[in-house]
């Protein structure tokens, strides 16, 4: 049996496979010593920037920060949504460093969103029945689909992705985080529902869906 302690540095650097990550996170959940070890390694890793000679930023920068704190949102809704999701992930990924259980998952989500943000793709807002934005879908020309939910599912629940083909709903898998990669090829509608762990053969609590390319 391998020593999971050896995987902690790679866990911190976001270098583990998802299987290894789950293994490490289960260990962290169960072991206070493991959590202490992780915290100690975190401190070391984030001491690295201390090696650099500090550099004063241009004086205008603080003024720009203040302006942005008071700025009203401008721009197209879609871009704001994209920006909002990206910012939320980045910050949460930042915060994730302190939450061992979510750290790697958040980092992986962040990397995935960052990658998809750089692709030429079509963005659609996923709304609930009240018309509130609950997530977004990114569709690429080759049929790729990234589902990004605003919030993680509540405890004891998972999100389940669905494709609709001539009225027939096909499960595309469940996910516990907020980001899920799938494909929209062959479907005329893509949707997300909230389900118990393990998912359901048919959606029991549909959250929202989007027709494919209008």
């Amino acid at each position, binding site marked *: 049996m391998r020593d999971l302690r050896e995987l902690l540095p790679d866990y911190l650097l976001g270098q583990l496979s998802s299987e290894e990550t789950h293994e490490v996170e289960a260990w962290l959940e169960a072991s206070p010593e493991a959590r202490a070890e992780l915290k100690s390694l975190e401190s*070391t890793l984030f001491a690295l920037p201390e090696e650099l000679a500090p550099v004063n930023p241009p004086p205008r920068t603080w003024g720009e920060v203040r302006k942005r704190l008071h700025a009203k949102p401008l721009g197209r809704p879609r871009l704001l949504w994209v920006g909002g999701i990206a910012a939320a992930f980045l910050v949460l990924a930042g915060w994730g460093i302190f939450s061992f259980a979510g750290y790697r998952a958040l980092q992986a989500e962040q990397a995935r969103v960052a990658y998809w943000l750089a692709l030429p793709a079509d963005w659609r807002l996923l709304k609930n029945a009240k018309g509130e934005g609950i997530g977004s879908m990114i569709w690429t020309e080759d049929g790729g689909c990234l589902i990004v939910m605003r919030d993680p599912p509540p405890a004891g629940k998972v999100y389940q992705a669905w494709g609709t083909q001539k009225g027939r709903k096909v499960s595309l898998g469940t996910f516990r985080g907020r980001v899920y990669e799938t494909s929209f090829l062959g479907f005329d509608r893509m949707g997300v529902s909230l389900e118990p762990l393990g998912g359901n053969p048919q959606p029991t609590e549909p959250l929202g869906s989007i027709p494919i390319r209008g």
Partner: protein
Amino acid sequence: MIWTAKGDETALEELYRRFSPRVYALLLRMLGAREEAEEVLQDTFVQIFREAKRYQPERAGVAAFVFTIARNLALSRLRSRAARPQKDENRDLHDPEQELGFWQETDREGRVLVQRALASLSPEERQLLEESFYWGYSHPELAERHHLPLGTVKTKVRRALLKLREFLSGAQVPEGGE
């Protein structure tokens, strides 16, 4: 941080005063471009202000919180680029515009200690750890860049971090490093 979480801009300004020179240095190192580093610096402090309520002091220090947000924002920029910047040892840090800044270094000893800790690593270990931390290279990317077996890269990065910790914790502090 607590006051920042309550929306106190003066508290954020204090955080900015304390951390911006170090965060800016980190961003310059990661991004290699002043304009982009400045943008991400702004992003960092705007996000800190908006998300400060998530900060939990019992879990980690303020510095780690700030650096983590800055690093993740910068890594996101790097990932959307085709290439990472190269380390520029000759960068002129004495831009006349920057001379007007209000910061002065108060923790030179801390910086020297980390520099010495890094000097205790082999050049290869140091390079691999820094490229992983600053530029977000994955192990396979590092293996390709350095023409090393993947297993060797993993071992060296891991060992580098552990050696660094050992040095910084004072367990074995060699004079002057390697």
